[in-house]
């Protein structure tokens, strides 16, 4: 493996691992805060799947890098500019409806990504994708069912669901961001080209929103930056909390 392709693979493993870690951590903030007990359990189960996925991906990233960094080193001792997660995953939970909007946008995207990644020539990526796609199917179903229930529910639930969708729309473009390094991996059959997913994503999301009697946002302006480590300030606060214990007690075991 050349230095360049090793770096490209490392960055991609970080992208995948950070998406799972940051979204998983955000969802874990719902622990004991869910609107009903069943949803408390549902959101934290989804968080558990994602954090579990991030562990295998960040371990693999550390292996590719070859500098001895572990999953914990990568999760707890990087600054926000070193994270490669999509901006959508770091957004605040907002209310339950906004969290559901984020879950819908993300899990539709993840389904597409994992379908492509299952065919990866990289055995670790393919193995990860084959496992994660089954978990994601439950996440996607959960998000779609709640979008319908809230959108086509009361005036209040519909207003909140629409607000969640509108508020997060500007972060959805960044999901499909690709770098030059990604394109090397695409031509080697290691990763799918996510930039080609956007139309199908829009169709699937629009179908759910329309069935939920919600309006598909028309705005064409999208915030970008995550692939270069440019994040919203929400990530700094998230990391401040997520990393505080490990940084206060380096090397602690429990």
């Amino acid at each position, binding site marked *: 493996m050349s230095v360049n392709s090793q770096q490209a693979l490392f960055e991609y493993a970080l992208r995948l691992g950070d998406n799972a870690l940051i979204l998983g951590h955000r969802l874990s903030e719902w622990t004991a805060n869910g609107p009903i007990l069943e949803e408390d359990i*549902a959101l934290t189960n*989804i968080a558990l799947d994602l954090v*579990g996925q991030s562990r295998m991906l960040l371990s693999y990233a550390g292996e590719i890098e070859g500098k001895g960094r572990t999953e914990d080193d990568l999760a707890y001792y990087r600054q926000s500019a070193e994270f490669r997660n999509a901006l959508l995953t770091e957004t605040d939970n907002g209310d339950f409806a906004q969290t559901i909007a984020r879950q819908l946008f993300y899990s539709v995207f993840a389904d597409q990504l994992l379908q492509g990644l299952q065919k990866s020539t990289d*055995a670790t990526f393919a193995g990860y994708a*084959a*496992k994660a796609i*089954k978990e994601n199917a439950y996440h996607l179903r959960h998000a779609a069912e709640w979008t319908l229930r809230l959108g086509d529910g009361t005036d209040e639930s519909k207003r909140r669901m629409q607000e969640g969708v509108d508020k997060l729309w500007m972060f959805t473009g960044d999901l499909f961001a690709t770098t030059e390094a990604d394109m090397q991996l695409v031509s080697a059959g290691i990763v799918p080209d996510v930039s080609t997913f956007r139309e199908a994503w829009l169709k699937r999301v629009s179908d759910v929103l329309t069935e939920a009697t919600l309006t598909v946002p028309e705005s064409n302006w999208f915030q970008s930056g995550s692939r270069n480590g440019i994040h919203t300030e929400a990530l700094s606060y998230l990391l401040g909390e997520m990393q505080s214990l490990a940084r206060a007690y380096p090397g602690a075991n429990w």
Partner: protein
Amino acid sequence: MSELFRLPANDLPVRHPDTTAIWEILETVCDPEIPVLNVVEMGIVRGVEKNTDSLTVFITPTYSGCPAMDVIADEIKAALKRNGFENGVVKHQLSPAWTTDWLTPAAHEKLNVYGIAPPAHTTAEKNVLLGKNKMVKCPRCRSEHTVMVSNFGSTACKALWKCEDCKEPFDYFKCI
């Protein structure tokens, strides 16, 4: 390549005759979250590699975030040690991805008796992922008059259901 993926991706683990004794030991290790099933019946054990001076057991997680994996690895090592295999090593393997299809009919019945409804489908049936649940029987009264409360339950592998006849809630082992 990562060590996780060294074994071929065939579905059912091959039991080499030399490792029969090891498999029998592994069958005494229970799943900490579903103690009526052992780790072999659960499909968590994916292979055993025995050489003159080394012994490796490969295990796979049911779900990516399954918190029981570390306990399972420790208990496997302890069971091997009790039976004279001092230096047994447990390694994690991700591929092929764990599926409820690996639960045997005997395991299904043990789950029922324990109060957990076993998976009602095989994952080959596409409607599993489309959310069209087939009928799930109440493990208590075997009524078919049941409804899903939530697709997420007390552990990653279970959903929460309730029976409209005996009125009891119950866990359902969801298909994956």
